[in-house]
Every structure is written in C-alpha cells, then in structure tokens.
C-alpha cells in the first residue's frame, strides 16, 4: 500500500498519475480519482473548517451530500470557483485546490477560537445580544459577524467562460444512473420512445460503481444503452429541479473535469427538459449518527469508505471501526476487508443482527460488539480513538482507530419528487419518508422509491448516551455547526414547528441543504418534543438539488446576448456620423449628433435652430405602427381612442389619444386613413407592444363581432421625419406620384406614392411645429432613402437631429411626451387635451372612468408652462413645485417639472409642469426649492412657440 492507496482494485487508471496541489502543496493522484479520493490516498484527513466554529473537518460522504470538504478550485486567472465539494471534483492534471474559511492556515486556524467560545454562540445567539450601544450593531458587531461568516471568497473578475443552454424533449426521463435508473432506462428504451438518462457523477453506475460484482452487468447495460439511438446518456449532469408538468431542469458540467488547456467550448450547459414520464432513480443517502466528536476528521459514512476503497482503490484508514445500526454497515465492512482495508471492530446498537453477517464478520477477524453504541470519538485534526458502551450506559471502553464509519441507515433522495409536490409517507421500517402520491406522470424506482430491503434501519437521531442532551457535543448539520443540543435549545425556547427549528438552528440550510442532517434533526426534534415524526413533518425541498453556477442558469442571456438591442435601419448611418445614443425601451436611438468638440447642449442648440431656420431630418423608425384593416376599422378605432374616427376622410390623419380603462392616458400617436377600411396607426416607441396587445384584447374578447384585423407594422417601415421650412424643397425632387403643394397636400394628410423609386406612405405631420413630412418607406430601403434625402438637403444644410432636439422642439410647442409629461395618473383633462375627446361619442375605452369622483375633483394636477424669472436658468426635470417656499419640511408640494430645456427659439429656458389647479394659476409665481436655493417661476400656457400654428401650414 503506497500511502493509503490500495494495491489493487478501483476504477482508477494506475498508469496515469496526475499532479495537483492542495493549499500550495504538491500531491499525486490517478486518472479517475476525485479530488477527495486523491487526497485521501495521500493520507490527508483534514479537508476544511466548519462555518461557525471553524472546527477541523474531514470527508463525511463521497457524493454530493458532502457537507464538510468544501474547496476553492483555481483554473487559471479569473477562473476561481469557491465552495466545491471535493468528492464531486474530478481530478485533472494541474488542479489547484485551496481550503477555505480559515486564517491563516487550515491546520492552524486562529478563528477556531470560535469553537472554544462556542458556549457563547448557541443557536440564535445574535438575537439575544449586540443591541447596546445602539450604534455598535452596524459599526462593530455586524462587520465582525460578516467577516467570520461566509465560506470561500467570491470571484472578483469577469468570467471568461461561456455557458450553453438547450431545451430537450423525451418520452422518458430517468434521473439517476444507478442500477435502478439504468434498468428503468433499458426498459424505457425498449419501447422505442426517446429516453434521456442523466446522472450527476463522472460516470454512470451510482452505487454499482462501489460494487465490483456489478461492473460486468453495468458495462453490458451501458453498452446497450449507448448503442440504442433513442437513448441519450448525460453524465456530469445534475437534475436540479422538477417544475410543473414534468419540466425538469438539469445542468451539465462540460469542462471542469479537464485540465484547463484541454477545456474547449462552453463550461456548463443548461438542459430544460420536458418529459412525458419522469422516472426518479436518485438513490438514497446514508445517514450519519450523532454522538460526541462525530465531526472529527476520520469519522465518515460507511458508504463513503466503501466508495473510496472499491471505486477509487483508497483505504480511508489502517485501522477502521464501523458503528452500525443497519445491515449495510456490515456489508460495507466485509467489502472493505475483502478489498484489503483493515476493519478492526463493528459496533452495532442492535442486539439481533443476522447471524450470517455476524458470522462473516467474526470469520474475517473483526471484533463485534452488539447492543453497543459509540459514545465519543477523540482526536484533534484527525480521529485517534473512540469510546463505546452498551446502549445508554456509562460503561465506556476505548479503542484506537484512524477511521470510524457510520452506518446510520438510509434516507431516500426524494428531492425532485417533492419539488413536484409529490406527497411523502413515513415508513417506520425505513425510518424515513418515502414517495407516496403525485399528480405528475412520475415514478420513483430503486433506493429513492424505497425499493430495497432497508427494513433493518433503526430510525434514530442520536445514539443513546448517558449524558443529558444539553451536554452532548454531537453534530447534526456539519457545515452549519448545528448540534443536537441546539435543536433541544430551540424546542426549549418554544420553537416547535420543524420549520422554526430549521430557521432558529439553521439545520439543513447549508450548501448541502440538509442531505445528511434533515432526518436526524427531525428525529431529535421528535424525541425532544415526545411527538412522533409524522406529526412534525418535514421541511420543504427546494431547487436546486445541488448548488449551480449562475452562469449556467442564465441560459443564453449572457453579456452581449443579455437582451436584444434593437436598432433601426438607419442606425448604422447614425453611428458612422458620430451619433451619441440613448436607450429607449428595447431600442437605441440617436440622441444627438455632435460636431467636433460640441457637447450635448451645443449640438442640440444647433440641431434645433437648423429645424427652425432651414431643415432637419430625424430617424423616427422606432415609433410603433399598427395596420388596422377591415370593414369595421373606423368603428374599432372609434371605440378605442378618445377621438372620433368615422368622419376622418381617407388621405387624412388625426392625432389619437388612448386611455386605459381607468381613464388615464396610456398612449398617443397619429393615425392616417389609407383607405376606407385601412388605417396606419402609430404609437409611442415604448408603447407599441402594449397598445397592440390591448387592441387585440378588446377586439378578440369584447368586440369579436367586428371585422377588423391588426398587424404590427413597426418594423415594416423606416420613418424619416423631414422638418423645417425647407422640408418640402428637400424632398420635392425625390418624390413621385404625390402632389406636394400646400393645397393638394395639407397639414395632417397622408399620401401614397414613391420616393427614390420605392413606395412610400408620406405623412404631412409635424412634431416640431414646422412644416414637416414623415417619410415611411419599407425598412429595407430606409438607409438608402435617408441618404438620398440627406444628399438632397445639402443645399439647405440639412441637419440630422436626435431625440434630444426632438424633445426640445416639441416642448417649445407644448406637445406632450407620454411617460414624461404624463405618468399613468393623468387624464386628458389634466394634460389640457380635452380637445382630443370626441364629445359626441357615447363611449370609448376609459370614458366611464373619467366620470369617477376623483377624476373630476378640484385640485388635480394640470399641465402648464413655467418660465423661470431668470431666463438663463433651466429647471431640473423632476424638481418639485411649492406655493409657499417658507414652509418647514415636510412641505406641501403642488406639482413637479416634467420637461425643461433651454429653448433655442425663445433664447431662454422653458419648462412644462404638472401643477395642482395649474390652469387657474396663469401668471402666478410659484417656487422650486432646490438644494442651492429657491427658484421663482411664473405659470404660463404650455405653448411657447408659434401658438397660432402658422409655421405648420407653410
């Protein structure tokens, strides 16, 4: 035996040694090892420190139930992962692991004083103290608690790895590729349906991997499954949750088992699987036993020692003792002996153990003590001896050892069953909860279904002891340092529900989520409360089954793919011309086009003046567009919008206002009547989807008698606004088939024709107050037409402008922006838009609500203009307005500034504001208290420029 590596056996490749480091020290393992087995083979017993008391800890289990051996694994710069379970980390060449939660070193951890002081830190201690002096909680106590808590360190850099995702469908999904799962998969495969078999471990086999007698069968079944083209086997894949209707989510680890240089492609992959039938074959997890010192390194589950020896060829010790309350401990002991591991003693609490087991053990030279229990384990950084006594007595005897194996019975892994709201029933013989009923098409087979003969398992939390509970030091939740007596304390303090006990003690709340502690905690609570476990219930299993990286769980949506960024057909041109963008809803829009060193204010000033004096062009493509078609199109819009539509002649457009049924403004936009039965309706950029959904809702569910259909046309049309006194001159040469003259094509008209040889819907509308056109062309021609207009506009120094100038220009005209000058609580009357309401219409969406008492009450906020006394001062948008600036805080606010700009046309600042009873306050001076002083402003009408609209009609 070299180190603790057995000379024969195991599924490791003895010809392939791998070097790795742990806490900087070099070690060697073998291909096929896990980090845990390789360290065990090198004689390492101390793997980590516990969460709260920093107690030295070794390996407890060799699977994903492991609570103790958490490590940080470094795979090169920026590839650090904390809190990995050593038994679940496949060894590869160059692996660098680090212990956690210790200072300065694992062996000499100064923070382990917590353990010495543990009497002062029982469950819930923080609720009882740190309250005085009051300020000290945040300045002193909390920072200290926080520093001591936490396990490993968080990564601190952007992750260079990427992650994949997929959906998958199958007729049968089998979770767990132990003997039961493999058998289920073989059976399902024979029916010809699609089968997916997943297992979290490095290779399929489950418990059979630690039982060489099953290897031949295992290999044969796997070969058959691999050969079947309707079966997909996913190893290193953990089913993390069972969601509604057999939607099972799993994560496959693709590269972490490889040396970094061999790792190609995605690190992990998310599987979102919809299965016709789910077969759960998750197996069962062995239960530790609770006695003093049960957490000392070297005390572990019998199944872990078995796995170490038979799967990895590693002895966990040279003189091993087994403490069993279950037959499987005997079988493991015998298997260990056969594999060359010396088991000196078996201690079993039961008096009657099957004669064949006892005889076999004695025959193998193992001392047997029946009716006895381990009363303590001793040792500091590793176990050196134990004491045991006949159950519940003080008649202790000591035995030296370097490993103690606990065979406490088995807990079926019913996690996914429970996620899906499957019910459980207590099985007295198993001493565990077993699956009972479910409304999913789902079954549990093998260990997790309670299939084997585990009938000899004793249901118990702690081993019998002569000491009272509050003096005992046995651990229940190893990672969170929950002792049996903490559970006793919780009950003593009145926490009787198992949910309270969990939260008060934190039992089951660690990264292993109670895989080894829940049932013991439950048994202890049951004992303390003198109530049967069935009355106590179980805490809730929740996804994920084991912790999973955020990177895998976020699917496709990482970095550049987080969310689509929508760009218009003209966006590239804007980028090439130096546009500065802003995000609006899902789109990005050019905000302004700086020239040279211009800042935003300078650029906007120039852009605005160009529109007022000559001509500007603006990409309005993001506006929502809906084609409303059918004989009842006008009737439909009439019922929906506040305005009247039936009278609108083809070829004309109208500004429409849309309310929510509650009467508040939801959206607006211009709609053009293209034909008697066809409207081109526009919406705000952000409102497009919302409005279309609302329209469909009313159309389909309230007015399904109407013959009208809605088609989203937002992306069909690129829209170029050409605005300014020279607008007509610019496009005149490009347009064909449309008479652009003032008479033939008045303001608020729409025409179809061609521009630059492509079809256009040309609107004569203006959001700037100047003569203007909105050129709609099929999006694929947007860029070409934009450039043509830009070229045709050169004689007039045509100026591309962005959203910011658009906002200023419209504010000068007192046009509102939905969502800026209104906020979801504003009625048309509030916004000064009563004119947009068809007074003769009997109904439209929202009309009834407008008659509600509060919507007609005095004192509502109304949209007005505000002019600061100092015209150079631009108010801040969102600033609050008061009538009396001298009141103490809290002040009575009567409104707020919704829009504020330096108006290039007026050469002074302007603002729009919502002010209580604003229209009755014309000429009144109001106050805007700012941190730097109070600003005075006078209430005016909201239209600052060309109130008569003469420029529109140029």
């Amino acid at each position, binding site marked *: 035996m070299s180190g603790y590596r057995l000379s024969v056996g195991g599924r490791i490749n003895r010809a392939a040694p791998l070097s790795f480091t742990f806490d900087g020290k070099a070690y060697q393992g073998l291909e096929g090892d896990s980090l845990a087995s390789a360290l065990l083979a090198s004689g390492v017993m101390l793997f980590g420190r516990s969460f709260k008391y920093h107690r030295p800890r070794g390996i407890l289990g060799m699977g994903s139930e492991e609570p103790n051996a958490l490590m940080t694994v470094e795979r090169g710069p920026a590839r650090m992962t904390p809190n990995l379970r050593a038994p679940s980390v496949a060894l590869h060449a160059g692996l660098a692991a680090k212990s956690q939660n210790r200072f300065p070193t694992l062996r000499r951890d100064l923070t382990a004083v917590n353990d010495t002081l543990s009497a002062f830190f029982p469950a819930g201690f923080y609720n009882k103290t740190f309250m005085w002096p009051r300020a000290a909680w945040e300045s002193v106590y909390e920072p200290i608690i926080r520093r001591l808590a936490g396990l490993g360190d968080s990564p*601190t*850099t*952007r992750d260079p790895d*990427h992650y*994949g*995702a*997929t*959906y*998958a*469908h199958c007729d049968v999904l089998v979770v767990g590729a132990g003997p039961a799962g493999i058998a289920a998969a073989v059976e399902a495969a024979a029916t010809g349906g699609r089968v997916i078999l997943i297992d979290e471990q490095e290779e399929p086999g489950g418990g059979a991997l630690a039982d060489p007698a099953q290897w031949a069968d295992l290999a044969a079944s796997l070969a058959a499954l691999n050969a079947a083209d309707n079966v997909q086997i996913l190893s290193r894949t953990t089913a993390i949750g069972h969601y509604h209707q057999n939607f099972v989510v799993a994560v496959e680890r693709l590269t972490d088992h490889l040396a970094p240089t061999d790792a190609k492609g995605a690190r992990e992959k998310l599987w*979102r699987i*919809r299965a016709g039938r789910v077969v759960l074959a998750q197996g069962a997890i062995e239960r530790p036993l609770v006695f003093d010192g049960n957490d000392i390194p070297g005390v572990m589950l019998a199944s872990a020692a078995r796995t170490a020896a038979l799967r990895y060829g590693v002895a966990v010790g040279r003189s091993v003792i087994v403490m069993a309350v279950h037959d499987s401990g005997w079988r493991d002991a015998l298997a260990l002996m056969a594999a060359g591991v010396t088991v000196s003693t078996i201690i079993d609490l039961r008096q009657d153990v099957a004669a064949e087991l006892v005889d076999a053990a004695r025959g193998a030279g193992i001392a047997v003590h029946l009716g006895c229990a381990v009363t303590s384990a001793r040792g500091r950084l590793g176990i050196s001896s134990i004491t045991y006594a006949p159950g519940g007595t003080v008649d202790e005897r000591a035995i030296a050892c370097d490993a103690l194996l606990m065979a406490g019975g088995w807990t079926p892994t019913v996690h996914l069953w429970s996620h899906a709201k499957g019910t459980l029933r207590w099985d007295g013989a198993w001493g565990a909860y077993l699956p009972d009923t479910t409304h999913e098409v789902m079954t549990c087979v093998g260990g997790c279904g309670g299939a084997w003969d585990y009938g000899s398992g004793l249901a118990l939390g702690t081993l019998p002891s002569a000491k009272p509970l509050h003096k005992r030091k046995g651990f229940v939740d190893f990672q969170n340092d929950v002792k049996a007596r903490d559970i006793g304390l919780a009950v003593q303090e009145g926490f009787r529900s198992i949910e309270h006990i969990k939260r008060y003690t934190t039992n089951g709340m660690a990264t292993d989520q109670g895989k080894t502690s829940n049932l013991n905690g439950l048994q202890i609570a049951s004992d303390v409360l003198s109530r049967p476990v069935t009355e106590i219930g179980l805490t809730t299993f929740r996804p994920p089954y084991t912790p999973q990286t955020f990177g895998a769980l976020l*699917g*496709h*949506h990482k*970095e*550049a*793919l*987080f*969310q*689509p*960024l*929508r*760009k*218009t*057909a003209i966006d590239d041109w804007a980028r090439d011309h130096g546009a500065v*963008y802003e995000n609006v809803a*899902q*789109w*990005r829009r050019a905000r302004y086009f700086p020239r040279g060193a211009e800042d935003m204010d300078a650029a906007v000033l120039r852009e605005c003046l160009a529109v007022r004096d000559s001509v500007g062009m603006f990409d309005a493509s993001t506006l929502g567009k809906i*084609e409303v*078609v*059918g*004989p009842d199109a006008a009737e439909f819009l009439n019922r929906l919008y506040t305005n009247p539509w039936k009278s609108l002649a083809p070829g004309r457009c109208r500004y429409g206002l849309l309310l929510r049924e509650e009467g508040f403004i939801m959206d607006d936009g211009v709609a053009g009547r293209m*034909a*008697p*039965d*066809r409207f081109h309706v526009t919406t705000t950029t952000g409102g497009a989807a919302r409005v279309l959904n609302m329209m469909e809702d009313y159309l389909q569910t309230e007015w399904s008698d109407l*013959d*009208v*259909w809605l*088609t*989203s*046309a*937002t*992306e*069909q*049309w*690129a829209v170029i606004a050409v605005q300014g006194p020279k607008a007509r001159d610019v496009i005149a040469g490009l347009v064909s088939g449309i008479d652009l003259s003032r008479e033939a094509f008045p303001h608020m008209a729409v025409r179809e024709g061609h521009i630059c040889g492509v079809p256009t819907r040309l609107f004569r509308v203006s959001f700037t107050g100047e003569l203007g056109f909105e050129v709609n062309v*099929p*999006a*694929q*021609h947007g860029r070409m037409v934009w450039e043509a207009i830009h070229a045709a506009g050169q004689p007039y120094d045509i100026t591309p402008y962005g959203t910011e100038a658009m906002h200023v220009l419209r504010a000068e005209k007192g046009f509102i922006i939905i969502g800026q000058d209104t906020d979801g609580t504003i009625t048309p009357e509030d916004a000064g838009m009563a004119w947009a309401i068809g007074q003769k219409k009997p109904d439209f969406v929202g009309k009834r609500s407008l008659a509600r008492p509060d919507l007609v009450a005095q004192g509502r906020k109304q949209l007005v203009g505000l002019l600061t006394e100092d015209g150079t001062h631009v108010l801040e948008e969102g600033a609050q307005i008061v009538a009396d600036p001298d009141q103490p805080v809290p002040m009575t606010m009567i409104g707020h500034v919704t829009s504020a700009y330096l108006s290039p046309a007026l050469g002074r600042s302007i603002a729009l504001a919502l002010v209580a009873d604003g229209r009755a306050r014309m000429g009144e001076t109001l106050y805007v208290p700012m941190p730097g002083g109070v600003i005075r402003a006078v209430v005016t009408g909201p239209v600052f420029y060309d109130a008569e609209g003469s420029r529109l009609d140029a």
Partner: protein
Amino acid sequence: MLEIAPMKLSAADLALPAEALVADGVQLALADDYARFSLRARDAAILEGLLGRKLPAKIGETLDGVACLGPDEWLALLPAGTALPLGEGLPVSVTDISSRALGFVVEGPRAVELITSGCPLDVAKFPIGRGTRTVFETVEIVVWRTAEARFHIEVWRSFAPWLWHALAAAA
C-alpha cells in the same frame, strides 16, 4: 475597488454578418428576399377567392409558401416582388410586411439541435412543411421546416442580429 473589464463584444456590436456561418453539422445563412404578407380573414374562402389560391386549413400547416399561423391568420412567403390584391371592402386584411422580418436558413444534421437550443418546442417532431409562430428564448420567431434537415426561421428585423448571434453561440 474591483476593476471589471468592459465586455469584449457588447449588444451594440451585434450585427448580421455578410457570410453564412458554417459550423460542425450545421449551417446558418440569411434567406433570400421574399414578399411577405399577413393574410387575415374569418372566412378563409373569401381570401382564397380574392387571392385565387388555396390556403392551408389547419394551424401549423403550410401550402405553397403560405403558413397557417392562427384560426384567421396566414403568413405568405412569396417570391420577392409578388403583389397581392388588398381586397378593399371585403372582410379581409391583406398587409404587405415584406420588410418587417428577415429569414434565416438553418441547415444540416444538427439543425434541430441548434433551434432547440432556444426554442421550447419539440422541433424534432415537426413534419416537413410544418410552420408555426413560437419563440427563441424571448424573441418571437416563426419556425418552418422546409426539409428533413432544413428550417426557415422568420424574425423581426431588429431582433435578427441578436438571434443570429444566439444561434451562432449555440452552433
């Protein structure tokens, strides 16, 4: 303070490439131009009469370049330049949406796998000729199986770069 390097590629950088993407077992390319129409009617016969062609009767079925997307909705993908009568006055809606979407062609033995990476439907079970509206993650698409190992995907223009790169990442 933690320094966090900016992303190498950002959402704003995503663009449609000029060339097809050829990966192991699958190829992704932009489809040719089409004339696209949204066809709507309560009564398919009226549309059929207007257009002079048969329409697929069942949701999910396709016929001669037309897919039935809903009980009163068809999507027509016709040769570029095709014009259709608008049926003014009839209880129908014929709307030209040629420019609204772009088409992708996903082809090869891994085509199903690629689409299934973000589309929650059981695409493998689509018969040839099946077309339906669905999603790829959060983006609405139309998936149309045009051959055993070839699919046509329709996606609105501004979502196309995202979709392209999402597919490319999965390829």
